[in-house]
């Protein structure tokens, strides 16, 4: 196996277009899969030498977060946790303190697990990936990137350089909750991200609802958003959200939870998540 650490996007895409090449960001999934021989890449392309993958920038349009920025760095950023607390909380649920020192949004998404915690957080926040490839750069909303377990909408030579997170709306809030049967260090049985915006009178003007671990890919639940938009996010709206979320679930039975349990939990979790997002939106 070869190890390469290109310093430009062009050099990285050229290497990644070759046979058996894999992206190395934080390595917290990749190195485990190499060790267990699930993956045996011929070339590891360490993208951390590319400046854009390793920095967070902020302007009037929002944040650009490098695909290889670590969970610990997201948490330490001076304003990101204030503007998008749900996104940061979701990313900080990945693994232990040690894993947080290495894990990244790009890796969490491209590992291709339907239960990835940061992905519903990103989808709710309206994150859009900037993807570099041999034919140039394109953008794709995060909800369109993972197609099925371990299957991505990226073609040969493409990799995610960064994510664009929009500026937080004037009265906007987001939240992410997951259900696990213990308090720490586990994989989501259900994950839910909600972002919403209110007008000055407290009526919801925009919402995004996303679910993890209840389908073959993380879901953007448009009917969940519709249940909230135009309401005061009162009990009636939350009941509609709960129903819409349960209707969107297509989970499997596995050791973490049954189909029935996951559907039930998803509805409850969505209501709780929306209430936290609402509380945060009211405070700004």
């Amino acid at each position, binding site marked *: *196996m*070869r*190890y390469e650490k290109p310093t430009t996007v062009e050099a990285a895409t050229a290497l990644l277009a070759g046979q058996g090449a894999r992206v*190395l960001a*934080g*390595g*917290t999934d990749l*190195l*485990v899969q*190499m*060790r*267990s021989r699930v993956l045996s890449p011929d070339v*590891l392309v*360490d993208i*951390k030498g590319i400046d854009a993958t390793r920095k967070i920038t902020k302007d009037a349009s929002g944040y650009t977060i490098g695909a290889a920025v*670590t969970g*610990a760095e997201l948490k330490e950023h001076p304003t990101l946790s204030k503007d998008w607390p749900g996104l940061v909380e979701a990313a900080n649920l990945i*693994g*232990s*303190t*040690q*894993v947080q*020192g*290495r894990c990244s949004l790009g890796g969490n998404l491209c590992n291709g697990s339907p239960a990835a915690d940061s992905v519903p957080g990103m989808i709710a926040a309206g994150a859009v990936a900037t993807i570099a490839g041999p034919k140039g750069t394109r953008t794709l909303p995060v909800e369109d990137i993972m197609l099925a377990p371990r299957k991505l909408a990226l073609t040969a030579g493409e990799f995610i350089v960064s994510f664009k997170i929009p500026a937080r709306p004037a009265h906007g809030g987001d939240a992410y909750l997951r259900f696990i049967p213990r308090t*720490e*260090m586990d994989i989501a049985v259900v994950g839910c991200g909600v972002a919403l915006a209110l007008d000055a009178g407290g009526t919801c003007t925009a919402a995004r609802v996303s679910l993890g671990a209840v389908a073959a890919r993380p879901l953007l639940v448009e009917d969940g958003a519709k249940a909230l938009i135009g309401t005061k996010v009162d009990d009636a709206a939350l009941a509609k959200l709960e129903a819409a979320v349960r209707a969107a679930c297509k989970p499997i039975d596995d050791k973490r939870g049954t189909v029935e349990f996951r559907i039930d939990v998803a509805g409850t979790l969505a209501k709780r998540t929306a209430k936290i997002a609402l509380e945060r939106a009211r405070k700004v």
Partner: protein
Amino acid sequence: MAKHHVTTTVNGDPVEYLCESEQTLLDCLRDELDLVGAKEGCSSGDCGACSVLLDGRLVCSCLVLGVEAEGRSVETIEGMAQGDELHPLQRKFLEHAALQCGICTPGILVAAKALLAKNPDPTETQVRYWLAGNLCRCTGYDKIVRAVMDAAAEMRGA
């Protein structure tokens, strides 16, 4: 494929080693540099026995490639005591009998040191969450947490 020639800093000392692309930082520390304090537990980032600091950041050295340490700064358990003088955390682990077999201990000490550098006055809950990625199958954690809290108090001069 030629081996990588890595130049890095370990516990403040400049060091060089040769490694294959596949070798982890843990392999390099143990097999190339004879620094065997960091332990190989699970090799999958679950147990924390191989914890080291990389540019001051707590990581599992089994989930870092040796070649990635190029130009960086690595701190291991071997750098914790100053000569014969134990770090307060090490002393408190002995006083509280916070170890039995000792396999997890280097990783927990490195992780605890990183916590106290960031937060000199952690709550017990904060200690438990911070150390959630360090597994111990002997002590049941209570003594470990007490030793960390006690060391933190001593280091604050409380």
